[in-house]
């Protein structure tokens, strides 16, 4: 069966510090991978998605970047965090362009 992991679960970082969030998927090959951000009490905003190794599409210009160094690994990064980067970050995967997505447990990021 397929599983998706995210870490860390929670993170508190000072403004201006770097960020690296990792997401890995097990039990499937060549998944589409997604990074979302969710503000408190709001819906999900798609940040990045990837259809293959090294292929990254950015949906929203921002202080963040993403990379996919391996087929089932997706990394969200920042060189210098802003207060506005605080939020709940969710990784997801699916197969095919239109199918259901499977979400990881999320990372709660607080930038102080």
């Amino acid at each position, binding site marked *: 069966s397929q599983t998706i992991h995210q870490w860390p679960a929670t993170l508190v970082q000072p403004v201006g510090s770097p960020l690296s969030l990792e997401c890995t998927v097990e039990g499937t090959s060549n998944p589409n991978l*997604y990074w979302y951000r969710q503000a408190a*009490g*709001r*819906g*999900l*905003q*798609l940040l990045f*998605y990837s259809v293959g190794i090294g292929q990254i599409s950015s*949906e929203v210009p921002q202080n963040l970047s993403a990379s996919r160094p391996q087929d089932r690994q997706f990394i969200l990064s920042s060189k210098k965090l802003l207060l506005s980067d605080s939020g*709940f970050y*969710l990784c*997801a995967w699916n197969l095919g*362009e*239109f*199918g*259901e*997505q*499977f*979400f*990881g*447990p*999320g990372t*709660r990021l607080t930038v102080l």
Partner: protein
Amino acid sequence: SQQGEEDPQALSIQEGENATMNCSYKTSINNLQWYRQNSGRGLVHLILIRSNEREKHSGRLRVTLDTSKKSSSLLITASRAADTASYFCAYVTSGSRLTFGEGTQLTVNP
């Protein structure tokens, strides 16, 4: 904005009652999906309805889709306290990835 809209934003009902949540969107879609999110957790996929389908059932869930009105509804019958969560609609178009609504916060009181 291409984002879907959901109403109500919050819904509080008693156990055993039915809960209905609505979703509207603005473009032609390939399919529409409903997800559930418990507080502080990831989302869980509930049901997917394709643009050529009008109604779909899964257990206590019933989803309808009216493409002429660009709207969908999620009905949870005989609700339980464990159904307390946020519910999101999300839709896919041919030119974009999954777009989420703002969600409905459902509280089922025991």
